[in-house]
């Protein structure tokens, strides 16, 4: 059995760690690329959202490397994600791929269903080991999040262009290499040290928050590397969702308690959107309110073309923008989005924020 899974930013680090810790043979698909997208789009429904197309491409590319089993998350609606795995599997079947599919999702009838699936993947490991494996993967997710956060703060202040990204790659590689808890602890500390060594200077920076659909937020290929682009324009970025939060909610079914939970965001969404709408639609509205109140200069909403929960959020964000006096821009990505278009829009947004913040300073 060779297990693969779809990409979503750095999620592979966490999943690979968890599975290999349990002695499962893993095939990490090649990073999502133009080829992945064109393979996936060719065989997906035209109006499927982009994550589905990229997932499919990942599986096709992983098969080239010998993968025969897919592990992925599922769900029970109302958003499409809950039916991704099944549709992808039907497509793969018709294309002649012989994949075994294991979907981690809230069981329809009995918790036993989920346990049996974990058993199937992890083979003879004891439950205690399985729990340790999950913890190990989760620790890696936390380490990755920490490094990404540091990068977002340092990028706009770096003295030498590109030094933050070099350091980030180096630090992540340390985390990837760790094979047990002890090594991981050292690797995280070492990684943080590497990030601290990036030379920066104090300068006034604008702060922008990225909110929206989780996959587009976490996958640099899908968002055309927006964090790096903003960083190099001298903007400090934060993002409404981090890997560890998603992994805990969707893969571990909330197994790890006491995290910053999306409930907080949902409360801030009132009175604009008083009900969940699937995906992270309500969180998008709530986090926009949260960032506006925390003094951010601007907000960018990211979503894939046809994403339903985010279209609801998009309709509601202008109200937030007006009431709380904060510029909000919506960026929709699909397989046709060009780089040039993205650059122009980010530059225009940057100018707008810059003018707005200097106007404020003059008044103050």
């Amino acid at each position: 059995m060779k297990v693969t899974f779809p990409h979503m930013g750095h999620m592979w680090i966490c999943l690979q760690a968890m599975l290999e810790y349990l002695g499962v043979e893993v095939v990490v698909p090649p990073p999502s690329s133009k080829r992945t997208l064109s393979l996936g789009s060719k065989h997906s429904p035209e109006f499927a959202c982009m994550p589905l197309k990229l997932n499919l491409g990942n599986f096709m590319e992983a098969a080239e490397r010998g993968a025969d089993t897919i592990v992925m998350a599922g769900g029970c609606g109302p958003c499409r994600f809950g039916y991704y795995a099944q549709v992808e599997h039907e497509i793969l079947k018709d294309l002649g791929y012989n994949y075994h599919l294991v979907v981690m999702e809230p069981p329809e009838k009995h918790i036993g269903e989920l346990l049996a699936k974990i058993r199937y993947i992890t083979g003879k490991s004891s439950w205690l080991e399985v729990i340790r494996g999950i913890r190990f993967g989760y620790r890696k997710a936390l380490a990755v999040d920490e490094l990404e956060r540091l990068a977002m703060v340092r990028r706009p202040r770096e003295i030498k262009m590109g030094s933050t990204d070099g350091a980030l790659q180096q630090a992540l590689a340390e985390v990837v290499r760790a094979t047990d808890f002890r090594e991981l602890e050292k690797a995280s500390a070492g990684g943080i040290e590497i990030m601290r060594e990036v030379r920066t200077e104090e300068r006034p920076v604008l702060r922008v928050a990225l909110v929206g659909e989780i996959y587009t937020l976490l996958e640099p290929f899908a968002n055309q590397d927006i964090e790096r682009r903003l960083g190099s324009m001298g903007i400090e970025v934060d993002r409404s969702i981090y890997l560890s939060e998603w992994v805990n909610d969707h893969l571990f079914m909330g197994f790890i308690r006491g995290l910053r939970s999306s409930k907080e965001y949902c409360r801030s969404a009132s009175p604009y959107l008083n009900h969940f709408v699937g995906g992270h639609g309500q969180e998008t509205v709530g986090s926009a309110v949260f960032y506006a109140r925390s003094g951010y200069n601007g907000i960018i909403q990211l979503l894939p073309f046809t994403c339903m929960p985010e279209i609801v959020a998009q309709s509601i964000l202008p109200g937030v923008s007006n009431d709380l006096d904060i510029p909000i821009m919506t960026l929709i990505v699909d397989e046709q989005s060009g780089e040039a278009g993205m650059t122009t829009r980010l530059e225009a947004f940057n100018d707008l924020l810059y003018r707005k913040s200097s106007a404020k300073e003059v008044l103050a």
Partner: protein
Amino acid sequence: MTIKIGIPRALLFYQYFPMWKTFFEKLGLQVVVSGHTTKGILEKGARLCVDEACLPVKVAFGHVAELKEADSIFLPRLVSVSPGEYICPKFLGFPDMVKQCAQDLPPLIMTNFNQYRREGDLYAAFSETGRVLGSNPAKVYFAYREALRAHKRHTSLLQRGYMPEDAVKLAGEPPEKGSLEQEDVRSRPVVAVIGHPYNIYDGFISMNLIKRLEKAGFRVVTQDHLSEETLRHHAGRLPKKLFWTLGRNMTGGALHYLSDPGIKGLVHVASFACGPDSMTGELIERFVRRMGGKPFLNLTLDEHTGEAGVVTRLEAFTDMINLRLASGS
């Protein structure tokens, strides 16, 4: 003066209008409905909502804007109409979208209709609606019972082969009335149309698809003419339970009609960029291919779809069926 409640002729109107209307009328209110969809209604709706919304949502915005004269507009949040299922994320957010995007509207009645946990939670939704209107609880309960009865009758009329708007017209008639049309219609070749009710029954959105097929000499059936058991039974063939009620009905209906030799062809109507359709449409098409045989037409509609193109494709589809009928297969 009686209070006027506005109900947009959009979204789940085609399934639930008799139920809603009965409820409000039994509370002594007057119900007003927006007219049939026109280009003007669509344009008004499209101006009010974001570009990315699907055609039926834009049309629904237009219908809401038609109801400015009403004293309030009934715009329930339709979370779930069947246990364990939803409709679409956009239905969950529709009332909030309207509230944010459309100004100068009469007050909106935005009660949650949520039967995700239990079928019986429908009463809670009506009793909340009654409370918002300030009606007496006993009267509300009575109105709710009458509303349920009206809904049952509506569904049974649909299952006897009526189209929703004809069933609405018959709603007041005694039960024995309304035996289906004349003999000649019964003996026509049958074509199945599968799609969201607000697409296939809205003559403007569907470009009169059903009427055109009837004119071309066919009898038309849809997923709504099938019983709940039949729909569930066939949807049960999917790899996983579908959690969208409309999508589940459509897929179950398509699978049923595909395996029924009396059905000569199948039309699937999807909204451009519709989330659920992108998934269920894909499954339906794969089944059509695997099960082979029947003429199949997939129409994807939005405000830019040209009528001429649809007409040509429809003709090619009906020609194909007629050819097969002539050759006796």
